């Protein structure tokens, strides 16, 4: 970067040149010297308390902690002088005085920072013979995923800091002081927190430990594979580990991914669906209304027969945005060139015109947008995103990277969220009225610079409107809109984080496009980062699994139908064959009743997945697919970061990877179809898609590789008919229902994880504290939620800061499917809530 100053200093006699302000620790590491650390942790505030990282600086009498001391020009630093070595040994002797030293029964044994450090730098024998402080006799359980032993604590405070500085929960603290201080929850009570296990990951010793991993293995018993989290499109890099064929742990390590040690509860604890007994193991053909196990040959034969006989226009394909790039690419190839059908999509939740317009407005075909770069902007504007629940690690990154300049974050959403506390301003707009807010902001900017902004595409749409009027429509105070516009005006660079609420509510996309265009015209450096909720959603779009564009956002010969259209046709009886991979349409399509009716008339329905989902049950043929842990391939996260994954296990029973199945179907109909070698498929992708040209993501790339620009803009999808939801007064159904993913869940996949289910058993509804007070309910109370057609009982979660009219139901619960409350074409459902008093 320009204007940065560099200084040169000597470390152990070796000259190094580093940026001004660099810590001695980092400078020494850069020079190739190792300095042990406890309290230091990348991304956390520096405390300099453990005193293990001492270095000697020529001319200074005292040793200095290198983790909080910045370099100065011409410093002469020694990391290995006799004084330093003696001090290190002394600190380790101190740390061990009250440490339990019960390594043989400690889960951390073998991968413990204290063990390793003492082994390397410590005294061989301590002189402490007094009675050790013991905080408790037995380990205690802090949460369904955390077990604690304070007797091993080295008091580095990483747990406490990570919880408040990164996760944003601040549920950990310190009880007592001096050697009796204990890092734990408030009076050691059971935690009601995000259960992300960040405290476990950063704890250098065996204090915070994983409950599900307890006594399961030593790390040398484990076989590991590098992969990518299967849940949201933050796309956290992780390593999964198995023992005797059972996956026991997923970890995120410093230096192995852009996310460092960060993962959320889903990523860190949601791995155990892989071990589920309910995994599908053989192809199942429905004969006379019951499923019968059949061979692959038989299954493929039936498919060939049904799909070749079908009218191509009446063949539909949907593939989940959790598959690998290779699988998605091959899937679209299968549908387009073998089934000869233009009808394919990667999600049943969103309208294809809306997604194309969103992709275009967010500039996704243009290039990748790295999150860390985006965070350097003067203003980070988060809109249409339930970021704290849907993209937790993105939420962490926003929190800690902007902490020093917290003034930069502005949030617009209908629901309160955890990240609000890290923002300068949080704007609450009415559900489905983000567009009016964005337009009002655009208009406010236009009024400031009418000449400069004249002619900006889309500007005519807001002329003649007033900020007041638009503000009223969106339910936002004019003063808030003015301040938002003011901050944007005053920022030289702006990053917009645009989430999937744009697609859920099918509106605001035009506003996003207009605001983006305005900011660009005003000379702002603009980045738009889409926040997506399925791990490979961007990959699916990149690969052209979309009815309106092909691989690399190229044009298609014939535009096809999205899921909306497919279901409509199916409902009319105009569907011959339907091939679905991993997308549980029945539980996700926003009008459950309609989806059920349509799919029952869908002609021959082939459903491929890991589990017998609701859609699987109404299919004609079920194919057992594989999980991410059984696949080699690549994933492209929301930023456009392409990351490679390797398999840890082989598919269960006779199940096959989705790539193998797609390839086999293709070959059975069209001999010579691409084989199931992921590397070869990726070569084809690399050769055919500009975005992937020259991209070779390796397993050891800690940052993955960013996609390139496609050269396409999808400009033709600029115009989109946005949904206008009726928010009129309705006394029978006074509340607006918002849906999305719960913090502990992602679609229905995560419901197969026993551990995640353990974090949240029953369906919940989040309501505002105002409504809770009015109804006289609290966390855990039961309420009856009634829509026009259906109702269900939910457990209440109270949220401060959400407007009274807004309620949220996660779309993840099979017992109370959120999509039951919706009617086709309606993006904001209305519900009524009453206290449930059945007992």
């Amino acid at each position, binding site marked *: 970067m320009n204007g940065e100053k560099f200084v040169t200093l000597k470390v152990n006699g070796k000259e190094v040149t580093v940026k001004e302000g660099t810590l001695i620790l980092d400078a020494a590491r850069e020079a190739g010297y190792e300095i042990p650390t406890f309290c230091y942790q990348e991304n956390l505030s520096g*405390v300099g*308390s*453990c005193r293990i990282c001492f270095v000697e600086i020529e001319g200074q009498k005292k040793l200095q902690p290198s983790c909080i001391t910045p370099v100065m020009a011409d410093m002469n630093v020694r990391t290995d002088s006799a004084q330093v070595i003696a001090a290190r040994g002394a600190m380790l002797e*101190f740390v061990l005085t*009250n440490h339990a030293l019960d390594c043989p029964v400690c889960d951390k044994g073998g991968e413990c920072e204290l063990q390793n450090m003492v082994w390397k730098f410590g005294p061989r024998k301590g002189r402490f013979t*007094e009675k050790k402080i013991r905080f408790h006799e037995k380990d205690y359980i802090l949460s369904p995923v955390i077990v604690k032993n304070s007797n091993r604590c080295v*008091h580095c405070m990483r747990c406490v800091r990570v919880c408040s500085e990164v996760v944003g929960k601040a549920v950990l603290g310190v009880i007592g*002081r*001096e050697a009796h201080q204990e890092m734990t929850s408030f009076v050691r009570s059971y935690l009601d927190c995000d259960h992300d296990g960040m405290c476990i990951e950063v704890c250098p010793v065996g204090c915070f430990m994983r409950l599900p991993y307890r006594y399961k293995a030593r790390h040398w018993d484990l076989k590991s594979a590098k992969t990518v989290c299967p849940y949201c499109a933050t796309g956290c890099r992780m390593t999964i580990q198995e023992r005797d064929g059972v996956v026991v742990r997923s970890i995120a390590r410093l230096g192995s991914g852009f996310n460092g040690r960060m993962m959320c509860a889903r990523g860190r604890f949601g791995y155990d669906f892989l071990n589920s007994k309910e995994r599908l193991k053989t192809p199942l053909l429905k004969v006379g209304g019951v499923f019968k196990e059949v061979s692959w040959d038989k299954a493929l034969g039936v498919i060939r027969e049904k799909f070749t006989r079908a009218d191509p226009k009446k063949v539909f394909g949907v593939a989940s945005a959790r598959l690998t790039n290779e699988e998605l690419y091959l899937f679209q190839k299968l549908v387009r060139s073998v089934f000869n059908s233009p009808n394919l999509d990667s999600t049943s939740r969103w309208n294809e015109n809306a997604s194309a317009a969103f992709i275009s407005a967010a500039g996704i075909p243009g290039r990748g947008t790295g999150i860390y770069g985006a965070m350097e902007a003067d203003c980070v504007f988060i809109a249409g995103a339930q970021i704290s629940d849907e993209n937790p690690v993105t939420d962490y990154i926003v929190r800690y990277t902007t902490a020093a300049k917290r003034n930069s974050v502005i949030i617009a959403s209908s629901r309160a969220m955890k990240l609000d506390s890290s923002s300068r301003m949080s704007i609450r707009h009415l559900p489905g009225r983000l567009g009016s807010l964005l337009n009002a902001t655009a208009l406010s900017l236009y009024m400031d610079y009418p000449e400069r902004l004249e002619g900006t595409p889309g500007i005519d749409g807001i002329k003649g409107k007033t900020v007041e009027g638009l503000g009223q429509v969106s339910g936002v105070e004019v003063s808030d809109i003015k301040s938002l516009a003011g901050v944007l005006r005053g920022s030289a660079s702006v990053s917009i984080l645009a989430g999937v609420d744009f697609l859920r509510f099918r509106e605001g996309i035009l506003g996003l496009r207009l605001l983006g265009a305005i900011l660009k015209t005003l000379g702002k450096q603009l980045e738009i980062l889409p926040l997506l909720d399925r791990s490979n959603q961007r990959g699916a779009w990149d690969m052209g699994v979309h009815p309106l564009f092909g691989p690399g956002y190229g044009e298609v010969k014939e535009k096809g139908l999205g899921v909306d259209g497919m279901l409509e046709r199916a409902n009319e009886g105009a569907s011959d064959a339907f091939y679905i991979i991993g997308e549980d349409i029945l539980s996700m399509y926003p009008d459950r009743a309609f989806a059920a009716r349509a799919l029952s008339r869908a002609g021959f329905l082939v459903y491929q997945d890991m589990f017998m989902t609701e859609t699987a049950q109404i299919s004609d043929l079920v194919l057992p697919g594989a999980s991410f842990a059984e696949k080699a391939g690549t994933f492209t996260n929301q930023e456009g970061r392409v990351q490679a994954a390797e398999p840890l296990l082989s598919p269960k029973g006779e199940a096959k990877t989705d790539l193998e199945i797609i390839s086999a179907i293709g070959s059975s109909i069209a001999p010579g179809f691409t084989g199931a070698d992921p590397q070869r498929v990726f070569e084809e992708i690399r050769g055919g898609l500009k975005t992937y040209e020259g991209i070779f993501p390796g397993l050891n790339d800690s940052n993955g590789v960013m996609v390139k620009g496609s050269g396409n803009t999808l400009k033709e999808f600029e115009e989109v008919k946005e949904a206008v939801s009726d928010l009129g007064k309705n006394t029978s159904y006074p509340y607006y229902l918002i849906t999305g993913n719960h913090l502990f869940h992602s679609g229905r996949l995560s419901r197969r994880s026993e551990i995640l289910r353990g974090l949240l058993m029953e369906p919940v509804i989040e309501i505002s504290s105002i409504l809770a007070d009015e109804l006289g309910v609290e966390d855990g109370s039961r309420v009856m939620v009634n829509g026009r057609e259906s109702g269900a009982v939910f457990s209440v979660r109270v949220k401060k800061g959400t407007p009274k009219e807004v309620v949220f139901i996660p779309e993840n619960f099979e017992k109370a499917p959120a999509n039951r409350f919706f009617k086709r074409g309606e993006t904001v459902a209305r519900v009524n809530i009453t206290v449930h008093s059945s007992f």
Partner: protein
Amino acid sequence: MEKILLKNLNNPGGHTLDNYIAGGGYRAVKEALKLGHDHIIQMVKDSGLRGRGGAGFPTGLKWSFIPKEVYPKYLCCNADEGEPGTFKDRGIIEYDPHLLLEGMIIASYAIGAISAYIYIRGEFAFGAKRLWEAIKEAYEKGLLGKNILGSDFSIDIYVHRGFGAYICGEETALLESIEGFRGQPRKKPPFPAVWGLYGKPTVINNVETLSCIPSIILNGPKWFSSMGSEKSPGPKLYCVSGHVNRPGLYELPMGTPLREIVYNHAGGIKGGRNLKAVIPGGVTAPMLIEKELDVPMDFDSLAKIGSMLGSGGVVVMDDTTCMVKAAYIINRFFSHESCGKCTPCREGTHWMTEVLKRIEYGEGKPGDVELLEGVCANIFGRTFCPLGDGAVMALRGALKNFRDEFAYHVENKRCAARGGFGAIGVWE
């Protein structure tokens, strides 16, 4: 010598505003408001006043570090007075609270603070009450609040009560505590003058330091610097406790010899016994023995002989005192008050206490004294804040002069000083 700080000690009702004004109080504020900020800072510099909180840092210099252009700025008065053997700030607060307030108003004016905090030791319930009353009186008279005395200077003073942690007397831990966090020292730099309360420039001064200010304004820096030692001028409060005939709080010129304080002012050793050791400046200060008693009680002279003036808490111990027990009790204080932040202090003071306790209870083992010295060496110079070093200094002071007594305890499992058994009389 005319009393400056303890003028109202024996004046019933002297703590009220009326009495204070009758004695010429708040004249200094009026004078100060006529002067420029820099002028006042220069006067304080010229007076040679050094901080009475322990470190003896030149007060005027400290004020001059405050950047002009940053807004807002704060003043914090350190009234945590936790050092064992110290009760001087309490004397001022309880008997002459307006003296402190006047000093704070002038200091705030000089550095441009918009509000000032008095962080008072939690146990000083009576002192806090006195301050609240005094502040109320001052507001009523327009001496605090908006546009005081018709000037364009406004200042509010708040009293913040501590919760019983010695470490909160350390200036940055004090700031953390006021902000509502756990009382633990912050890393320095940045120093409070740049990044203090709520991240804004802040001056932290001791009660006694601030109480010297009004007289400097009224009588001029020359008058002040003519008192006491050359490099440590002014009046000083000495708190004498222990085995003396007249324990109490004495205001004397800085640099008064320790012998004079113990024998003349405090009336000598109780019961005509012999003096064994004196702690000159709160328990952190290494103890002195008879032959060192002629030392002038000021910052530099004490530093020269390896001790320190610290808080001016003089603790006198006669020849019946068991030094192992004294060292144990002092060390136990430090290990109990260790904030827990840094490894050497947290674990080291705990370790030392355990060993001292064993020796005191007749369970010493050969090598224990060497072990103590080893632990001291491993702590010293490596702690995050001076508390840990202080614990070492105190123990080293005892070991330097009374190593034999420790060895005797270890070897004979009993006390040489009392002829009895070690454990007798240790309070728990």
